[in-house]
Every structure is written in structure tokens, then in C-alpha cells.
């Protein structure tokens, strides 16, 4: 597996952290459902997708309102509504097995053991190409982001998942970590195959006419173009801290946004909120990367000079 910083990724197929991607641009968890919902997306452009986060058991999710728009961004507090792992195995995985791009399952738990159990259940399931361990969800009462703020807890979750599956294990990091490099290194040492940086930033918005939070869960996670400069910085720090590949996430809308993450040291990227605005956002990002590629397949920028 080549180092993220060894060269730039072309728009073509590549292998990242044990997963064979059709292009370097993937659909981010929670913004592409289970892959059956967005008919207008150009699926040939899709490098791969991460399904909506799941727990062992079905979950109702957070009370509405669940979304608030903010300047160039949105807060969400979905609360990981979704079917449990059994439905995923029974209803979605068989479909995914027929698709031309890999699907990773986004794993969530309230305890280390729940993550491990999920990993075990998904091991060997046809249609599941990898696991994205979500230790960064800001919208649950227990677990989620708490695991991602502490290097020891992050390592514990990663290690527990690692020993229960032969699937590639990616770990999705939270910007709320005091030292994201330390968490990244801890996950790498615990056996992660790749790191995803980053999940949403915790935020809050109040209704000035009632004085109450505008989200049912009170706080939510900020995504969209507003966070891009913060996410590029964090993804860059993570890429500098580890040798495993990094997948950049946060506010990617245009082809050049994706390239910014690649230049910052990421090996692939995920697109989230942009898909809400343009169901074919990923198609357009990949098309832009392709059009701008130099003849040898590498994008036109240079690698980021180390500081």
C-alpha cells in the first residue's frame, strides 16, 4: 500500500486501506443512505460508499427538528436512526454484492463490546467490503464522539474490532479530539487500515424567538463548505502523523475541494452534504478531477512541501 504522501492520486481506480476503490471519491456515511436512494448519482464515478451508521439493534433516532441550516453549512442531529445489523445483512448486503463499487458499513456502539460484536457479525458477509468505525458521532447520548476524543479509548475500540474481523478496518476521527494526531497514532497502532478525517464539528443554534435550541437534540454536528478549511487542516495533521492512508472529509463540493485534501496528504476523499444539494455531486467532482488530470494521470498540483 503506497503512502498517501508519496504522490497524488489520479481520478482512476486505486487501493486504499485494503479496499479497492473505483475512483478516489466516495459517498460519506449518513449522506447516501444505503445506496439505493439517490437515482441521479453517476454510479460510474462513485469510488465507493459508506452506508448510514448502524448499531446492533434498530434505533429510532433523535427528535425533530433534526436539521438547521447555518452560513455555508448545516447542523444535523439525526441520532443514528437506522435498522440494526440484521436488516443490513439480510436486505442490503446482497444488493451491495452485485454493485460495481465497494460498500463499507459505518459501525456504532455504546460500548467497546458492541463495536466488536458488530464487526464479528459483518465478517465474511458478501457485499460488505470494509468497516468504518465511527468513534466520532456527536449526536448520541452514549458512545460516539466520546471514544474518539481519547487515544486510549479510540485504540480500545479499534483493537476490539480488529480482532473480530478480517475486513479492512477504517476509523473515522472527530475534530473534537484535543490532539487528533495522538488519536490517529493510537488507532494506527491498534491495527486500523486507514483513517477518515473528519466527522462533523459540534455546534448549536438557538431560536431567538423562543430562546430554545433549534435542534431537537439541542446540539448537532456541523458539515458543509463552512468546515472545509478546518477539515483540510485536520486531515493534513493526521496524514503527517501516520503511515496508513487518510481519507479526507469535510465540505467538499467542487473538484478543487477534493484536490485540496489530496494535496494535503489524503489518499481519497468522501463527499457528504454536497450530495444533498446536488444528487450527482460526486459525479461532478470526479469529472472535474478527470478533466484536470495531467497526461500521466496525476492532478495538476504539486505535493505539499513539508513545513
Amino acid at each position: 500500500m503506497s503512502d498517501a504522501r508519496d504522490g497524488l492520486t489520479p481520478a482512476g481506480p486505486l487501493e486504499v486501506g485494503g479496499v479497492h476503490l473505483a475512483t478516489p471519491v466516495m459517498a460519506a456515511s449518513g449522506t447516501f443512505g444505503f445506496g439505493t436512494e439517490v437515482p441521479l448519482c453517476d454510479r460510474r464515478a462513485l469510488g465507493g460508499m459508506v452506508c448510514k451508521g448502524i448499531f446492533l439493534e434498530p434505533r429510532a433516532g433523535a427528535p425533530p427538528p433534526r436539521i438547521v441550516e447555518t452560513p455555508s453549512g448545516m447542523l444535523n442531529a439525526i441520532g443514528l436512526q437506522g435498522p440494526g445489523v440484521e436488516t443490513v445483512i439480510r436486505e442490503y448486503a446482497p444488493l451491495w454484492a452485485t454493485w460495481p463499487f465497494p460498500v463499507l458499513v459505518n459501525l456504532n456502539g455504546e460500548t467497546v463490546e458492541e463495536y466488536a460484536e458488530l464487526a464479528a457479525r459483518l465478517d465474511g458477509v458478501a457485499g460488505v467490503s470494509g468497516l468504518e468505525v465511527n468513534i466520532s458521532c456527536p449526536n448520541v447520548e452514549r458512545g460516539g464522539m466520546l471514544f474518539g476524543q481519547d487515544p486510549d479509548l479510540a485504540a480500545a475500540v479499534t483493537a476490539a474490532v480488529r480482532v473480530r474481523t478480517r475486513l479492512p478496518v477504517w476509523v473515522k476521527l472527530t475534530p473534537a479530539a484535543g490532539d487528533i494526531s495522538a488519536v490517529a497514532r493510537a488507532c494506527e497502532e491498534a491495527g486500523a487500515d486507514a483513517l477518515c478525517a473528519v466527522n462533523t464539528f459540534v455546534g448549536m443554534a438557538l431560536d431567538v424567538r423562543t430562546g430554545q435550541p433549534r435542534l431537537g437534540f439541542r446540539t448537532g454536528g456541523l458539515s458543509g463548505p463552512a468546515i472545509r478549511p478546518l477539515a483540510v487542516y485536520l486531515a493534513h495533521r493526521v496524514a503527517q502523523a501516520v503511515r496508513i492512508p487518510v481519507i479526507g472529509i469535510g465540505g467538499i463540493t467542487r473538484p478543487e475541494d477534493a484536490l485540496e485534501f489530496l494535496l494535503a496528504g489524503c489518499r481519497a476523499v468522501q463527499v457528504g452534504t454536497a450530495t444533498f444539494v446536488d444528487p450527482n455531486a460526486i459525479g461532478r467532482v470526479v469529472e472535474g478531477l478527470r478533466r484536470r488530470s495531467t497526461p500521466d494521470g496525476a492532478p495538476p498540483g504539486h505535493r505539499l512541501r513539508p513545513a
Partner: protein
Amino acid sequence: MHDLQAPLVGRRRVARDAFVLGFRAGPIAREVRAGQFVNVLLRPGPLLRRPFSVHRTEGEIVELVLRAVGEGTGRLLELREGDRVGLLGPLGRGFALDPSAGRVTLVSGGLGVAPMPMAARQARAMGLHVCWVHGARTAADLCSEWEGDEICWATEDGSRGVRGTALEAVPEPAGQVLACGPLPMLAALARRWPEAQVAVETVMGCGTGVCLGCAVPLTSGVYTRACTEGPVYRAGAVAWERLPAPAHAGWET
């Protein structure tokens, strides 16, 4: 589902501060059913799309009705003829009309008129008798256009028609009831006609079923997606007390 760049081709005022905007979007106009919506992208404009019920279609033209309540609706009403917006749709599940009902009553409060002209036309095309009951604060807020066989007005101040809400003006027997309007009106309607079909509004992230942002709580305990399982629900199925009105973005909106 289509994703089109649609030019504004017409605009008219239908009530105080309320306007109908017409966009040329043939593929959507041909497919859309009453109660479905389109998700509108404005550039420059707010990050997310804005959902609007399809009000009427006229050939290739998709009409929306709206009032300025915030940035998106404000920008929509500033558009000039020829300006383009992105239209994604048709989205959601519309009204299911029962041809055997004989009579259908449309109940609309304020901008809840939005899906009614299409519903009236589809019902009449099926041979149903259409009674439209429309309420607003004052006569000036009533929509000046209507379709169907009968119209009943209601105003809070009694300046036109019955004094009270649209609900109080519904002539019995109502037959099949379709409704759209403010949440309190719909909640009251659900108590009277649990079998009524109501179109609800929620904040939406995507409009296509992937974000789970548009959650509508059902009495069965689950959340459903207004953009996919809705926006039309059986009135009695919705847990109205757990469905908040969208919070306010600021003072000005």
C-alpha cells in the same frame, strides 16, 4: 426524478404577499402528481435546496406558490423572468385519491393552498365532486384563485366567509378529506377525520431520502421521512404532539 435548470416564466400575486411563480420544466410538469413537491436550488443563495409543493402545472410549466419568510423564499421572489433555478423532482408521495369516494373536500389554511389546485383537477378528472374549503387570517390573505365544484371561505376576522378556521367551515358530509396548512390546524383535523390525508412541512436536508432530516413521528413510535414516505400522511397516523413547527432562523424571517 429530474434535476433541471428551469427558467422563471411567469409570476402573479394571489394573496397579500403571496405569489405564484411559474418555471418551465416539462419533464417534471408531465410526471408530478398532486401533493408531490420539488426541491429548489438557488445560486447565489442558501446552501441547501428549499422544498415547495407543486401548485399547478400548465403544459410545460410548473407553478409554485409562496411568501417571503427567509433567505430562500426572499431570493425566489426577487428573481426576474428568464432567471434559472435548479428544480429537483417530482419528490415524495402525493395524495391517493379514491375514485369511489364520490366527494372530496380540500381543506387549506393559508399557504396550505399550495397542493390543492392539482388535487382538485385530478379529483375532477376521476369524476369526483370537489369542495374546496380555504381559510386565512383576513380576506386579503385568502388565495384569490380556486378550482373545483364548490368553494367555502373562512377568515379569522370574519372579513370573508365563515368566521373561524377552514376546519370549522367544512360542510358535511366531507367525503374524502385532503388537507394542508399550519400544524395546529392539521392536528385538529386529525382528531375529526383520522382518515384524512394531510401534507406536512418539515425542515429538509436532501429531499431524496438519504439524510433522515425530515423525520415525522408516527403514533406507532417510528419516524418516517417526509420526503419519501410523505409528505402526505394519514392524519391519524402522525404523532402531532411530537412534530414541532420548524424553529425560527432569526428575527427577520
